[in-house]
């Protein structure tokens, strides 16, 4: 079919690079993955980690990235696509590929607070280091990784501040699109942030208006019972 062929031709021209969304845990990488996906770039995820209150639209995790140090055989299948990888693992990217890294940065206090909320929800105590030491350790890591990235000829990096993108998503959607080749849907990328903000605002005023994670399963069951799904 003509429409499909045209689509395939366009896709091939985008396939040279691997896109990686990176940063510290809870720095806004899932939101960035949503933007990239909404913009039209295929994302690589295994959906093992299900969406929950901490990341209502899912974590976009891809378990294989954790094995990159020992096994990078899966990387060629990620050309023209995006996946998420915590910044600690970037050191292990093989140099025989070209990468575009979108590196999320977020206020350290917010990262620690967000991690704390998530850990409490999971019933875990978190690190024994304490917030101050943890912040110091993260800062040190960021310094090293940024210096290292600056010396990698096969890696281009776009640093994005989570707080700025939340404040004004449209110009960031534009620069993100420019960075990724200029073929993404900026309006959809902007909408993802705006709807995320809308959700947060709504949740702060009305207690959990949407079906939450465990409710969705029950809704699904009730609809299936009546043949609506």
């Amino acid at each position: 079919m003509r429409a499909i062929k045209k689509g395939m031709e366009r896709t091939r021209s985008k396939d040279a690079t691997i896109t990686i969304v990176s940063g510290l845990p809870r720095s806004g990488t899932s939101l960035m993955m949503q933007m990239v996906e909404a913009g039209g770039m295929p994302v690589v995820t295994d959906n093992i980690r299900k969406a929950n209150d901490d990341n209502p639209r899912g974590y976009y995790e891809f378990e294989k990235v954790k094995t990159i140090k020992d096994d990078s055989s899966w990387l060629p299948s990620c050309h023209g696509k995006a996946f998420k990888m915590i910044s600690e693992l970037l050191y292990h990217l093989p140099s025989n590929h070209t990468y575009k890294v979108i590196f999320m940065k977020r206020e350290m206090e917010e990262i620690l607070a967000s991690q704390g909320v998530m850990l409490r929800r999971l019933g875990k105590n978190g690190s024994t280091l304490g917030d101050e030491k943890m912040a110091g350790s993260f800062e040190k890591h960021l310094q090293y990784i940024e210096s290292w990235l600056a010396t990698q000829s096969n890696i281009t990096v776009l640093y994005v501040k989570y707080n700025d993108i939340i404040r004004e998503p449209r110009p960031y959607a534009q620069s993100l699109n420019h960075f990724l080749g200029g073929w993404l849907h900026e309006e959809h990328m902007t909408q993802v942030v705006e709807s995320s903000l809308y959700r947060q605002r709504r949740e702060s005023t009305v207690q959990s208006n949407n079906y939450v994670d465990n409710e969705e399963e029950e809704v699904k069951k009730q609809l299936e019972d009546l043949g609506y799904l």
Partner: protein
Amino acid sequence: MAAKNTTSRTILIGLDGVPYGAIKTLTQTGIMKNLATIIEEGVFRKMASSIPEISSIAWSSIITGKNPGEHGIYGFVDVHPGTYRLFFPNFSTLKAPPFWATDNGRSVIINVPSTYPAQKINGVLIAGFVALNLAKAVYPAELVPYLTDMGYQIDVDSGKAHQSIDLFLKDLDRTLKSRITAYRYLWDTQEWHTFMLVFTGTDRLFHFLWNAYEDPHHTYHETVLDHFRQIDEVVGEIHNKMNDDDHLLLMSDHGFEALTCEVNLNYYLKEHGFLTIPEGKEDNFTNIDRTTTAFALDPSRIYINLEGKYPQGSVNPEDKEHVMDDLISLFQSLEANGQKVVKNIYRGGDIYHGPYMEQAPDLVLLGNKGLNLRANIKAKQLIDKGIFTGKHSQEDAFLVVKGKKNLDIIPEFPTVSDIVNIKDNLNRKER
């Protein structure tokens, strides 16, 4: 009948999924005697449901007076913009205000589908299907303990019908009785200008026991009729409690008919190369790949896999019209058991209008009699026949309005989106 009051009130009674034909039969055979009296003295019309004929869409249109392009509800399930991830729209998703948000007086609203979670109202709201948690289904929250004490049940557990029809019927009866208790309590204890009560057990009954309704010799035929007798008693009770100048509207959101078989649209799209899930991947929407041209969402909404709209979009927007033509030809040739499956194919742009068209399906199919269109992406065959014996129908919902003097304000061929207008015109006329 009660004495004339100085201020007229409006009462709306909903009978989910009850077709015009069934009302005709049940009133003519003495099962619904009270409704027969109201019909005799009033207006009785066949009413068109929403397209597609699904309760979440139809009730959203009934309470807002808007079409899906304006209220944003296109089904029980939808995809997040820019993704293939499914979500279940609810009352928070509704973009247009329900009539009670703009009316001046107090309202009591009981069991209108798709009003969960309950939101602030000048009056009382008990949300309907799909409402999971009574604490989130009721406004104001102070009423929750009263409803809990009276054993209020939001909906029948339809899962029971898959185990035992007897268990299901017991639960259905318990739910109806608790609903009647709640309506009586709120009618007597609340100040109100508009009272809306929806019975949803009727739809559940017809899904599983339409055959029993149609067959006088069926074991459960009388049980089905009894359900309608109980509802008719409530209709009579309300009619008797009304003041002379109060307005009464009774309606369904869609009709019902016998189900012959279910036709799986995504299976058909896959079979003809329009929908692809890569080999080895689970059949779900998030695994749709770039060679996909279109996919279906329940019950019969078709979405073109447009570039720029979806992550794996493959269809250039310039080619959208050609692709729609291809799909129309494809569905026109679809047959099940030697019968043409599709009766009508609508383009989204022809039947919807408003600011929320971005989420609108590109095509909506209406099945021929008895053929239930489904979008189960996991379906392994084109045709299924499950436990259900009845299915929704689009053209034969019903509307009854008390009093013949109002004939001029009821459209000859009303649709679910006309209800708010009719209600408002009745009130205007009174003034």
